[in-house]
């Protein structure tokens, strides 16, 4: 199973990278979310996989008599999910703020902190219609 | 008094979900229930809680029956190569008055054959449902069926 997940992770990484390179900040943030999912899967996979033996000690025993799935990656991924969620929430609301303050979610138009250099020609952006940024 | 019963009920629910029906667990459940009620008090109209819970239990089986029947009919139609039925949104004048009754009715309708609650009018007197099967294009038949079927059954229980 692990090799299949390796491919899934790679594919998700590719998707997320592509999204992060878009102009639309919402897409960029979605890219980050996908990447974070992919990385969680990566850790989970590299901790090696086992089917149907969750790391729970039965009520009848104090030291498990049988082997079970590696609990450590689970704990790590759980932590990573939560952290990722916190960061995501912030990034998302930042996107919202960017929209209300700067008036755009097009990252190419965000030139407040780094205003255009003298004589710099700004690219034509936010051209509506013709083609979607996909 | 009602609140005490609710508390007891919550303790039982607790014991049920935890799966250990011991005195200790019930006591813990009771304490937790008390805390929950403390938190939830403003949210829940506790006056009607007992009745609500009783209804919930009562209706489960009724729902399940209706659910199975409705699902089988939908299943048939889903598999059929073409769709011949007539459908539409029908307004049902409500006899049910409390929010609970209306909600219960709306949910039941959604889970029974070919009907789906869409909205309740702003004055609260009409329930609009989407009917999948308006047989013979008789809209009033649909209305009647709901009024005499589901609504009456609910009101029988909620207003003994």
């Amino acid at each position, binding site marked *: 199973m692990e090799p299949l997940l390796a491919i899934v992770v790679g594919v998700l990484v590719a998707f997320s990278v592509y999204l992060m390179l878009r102009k639309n900040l919402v897409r960029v943030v979605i890219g980050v979310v996908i990447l974070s999912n992919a990385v969680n899967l990566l850790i989970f996979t590299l901790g090696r996989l086992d089917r149907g033996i969750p790391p729970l000690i039965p009520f009848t025993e104090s030291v498990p008599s049988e082997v079970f799935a590696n609990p450590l990656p689970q704990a790590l991924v759980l932590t990573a999910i939560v952290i990722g969620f916190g960061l995501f929430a912030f990034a998302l609301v930042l996107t919202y703020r960017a929209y209300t303050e700067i008036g755009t979610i097009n990252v190419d138009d965000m030139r407040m902190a780094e205003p255009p250099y003298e004589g710099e020609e700004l690219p034509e952006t936010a051209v509506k219609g013709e083609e979607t940024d996909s | 008094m009602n609140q005490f019963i609710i508390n007891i009920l919550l303790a039982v629910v607790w014991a*049920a979900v935890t799966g250990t029906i011991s005195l200790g667990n019930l006591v813990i459940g009771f304490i937790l229930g008390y805390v929950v009620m403390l938190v939830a008090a403003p949210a829940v109209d506790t006056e009607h809680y007992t009745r609500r819970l009783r209804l919930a239990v009562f209706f489960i089986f009724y729902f399940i029956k209706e659910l199975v029947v409705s699902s089988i009919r939908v299943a048939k139609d889903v598999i059929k190569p073409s769709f011949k039925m007539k*459908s539409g949104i029908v*307004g049902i004048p409500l006899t049910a008055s409390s929010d609970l009754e209306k909600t219960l009715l709306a949910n039941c309708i959604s*889970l029974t054959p070919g009907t789906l609650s*869409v909205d309740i009018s702003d004055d609260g007197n009409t329930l609009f449902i989407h009917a999948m099967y308006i047989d013979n294009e008789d809209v009033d038949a649909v209305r009647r069926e709901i009024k005499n079927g589901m609504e009456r059954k609910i009101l029988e229980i909620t207003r003994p």
Partner: protein
Amino acid sequence: MISEIIISFFLLSGSFFVLIAAIGVVRLPDLMMKMHASTKAGTLGAGLVLVSVGIAFDEISVLTRVIATIIFLLLTAPVAAHLIGRAAYYVGMDFWEGTIVDELSDEKTKNADSTDSNVKMNRKASES
């Protein structure tokens, strides 16, 4: 053995209804119709499979949790359908050609400014 058969029955019927729901969501002609399929068949299908779990484990703690799950499903599924249907309706959805009546539309034209939505209330208005 008996229990195995019972479990199998619930599993098969449950997965059957889930499948029906899925096919319905794919095949049925408009949103309301799809919701009929997903709400009813989906709930039922998932519920039946859950019942099989309750039987399979023969433990009170599992059973109670199964029942809790089913209750939650029955409580939430119709509400979800209602919310989606209502929202979709108000922003203007396409009905399939077999639709013969829309009494909600008449009601809403009567008092167009009484809802909480700030968008076009009326299906016809949004279509024009």
